[in-house]
């Protein structure tokens, strides 16, 4: 990851900026939206237990510490994926999110709440981190330093 950030640094103009968007690493939620309220269905698991997102945070921090970039601004947003049904969302995730794990408990909860509330639409809620980093010249030769 740090190597990729070094490559990006080299592809940017001296006054350029990097915008990084990646999941924060907080658990992703399945939500049943209700009228003015919501019901938590459960959490999505990942095969690597979200570790890659924490590694991404560490890699960004490393490039700031080493003087490649300066963090100008960092924030968090909610990224919502809406589906007409839990089955639709599951199919979408199976096709597009290769390391997503939807446990049997979550599937059972989705069916139970759909029956209980008479609402089939579901939402996937992810917390996403957006960072703006400014190119710095870097400390010459820092990459070779221990």
């Amino acid at each position, binding site marked *: *990851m740090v190597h*990729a*950030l070094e*490559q*990006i640094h*080299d*592809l*940017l*103009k001296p*006054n*350029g*900026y*990097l*915008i*990084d*968007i*990646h*999941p924060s690493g907080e658990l992703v939620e399945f939500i049943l939206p209700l009228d003015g309220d919501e019901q938590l269905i459960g959490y999505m698991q990942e095969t690597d237990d979200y570790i890659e997102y924490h590694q*991404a945070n560490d*890699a*960004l921090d490393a490039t700031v510490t080493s003087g490649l970039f300066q963090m*100008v*601004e960092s*924030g968090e*947003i*909610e*990224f*919502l*994926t*809406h*589906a*007409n049904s839990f089955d*639709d*969302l599951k*199919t*979408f995730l199976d096709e597009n999110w290769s390391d997503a794990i939807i446990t049997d408990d979550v599937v059972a909860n989705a069916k139970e709440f759909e029956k209980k509330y008479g609402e089939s639409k579901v939402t996937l809620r992810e917390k*996403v981190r*957006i960072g*703006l980093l400014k190119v710095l010249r870097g400390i010459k030769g820092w990459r070779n330093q221990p």
Partner: protein
Amino acid sequence: MTILLDPEHNESNALFSLPIAWTGKSVLEIGSGDGRLTWRYAKKVAHVIALEPDSDKHAAALANQPQGFEHVRFANLGLDAFAKTSIEKFDLALLSWSL
């Protein structure tokens, strides 16, 4: 199957609230996927090169490209391959869910 990704535009609103200028800028997007986010900012900038190593997603981006976005070029490449050959320097790099 109807799936809506960020219809609230929280992602693009957050991008446009960053303290940077977009107009006239050259952008390197890394991990452009099917172009979902690309279409949301590309009108604001002068030139985009959007990298996507996955062939299916790259093909989807080409198929989805609307008119008026001729200044956006999709490349079926990863960052590593692109960095080895590119001599262009960009104003902005957008790491789009790909770090």
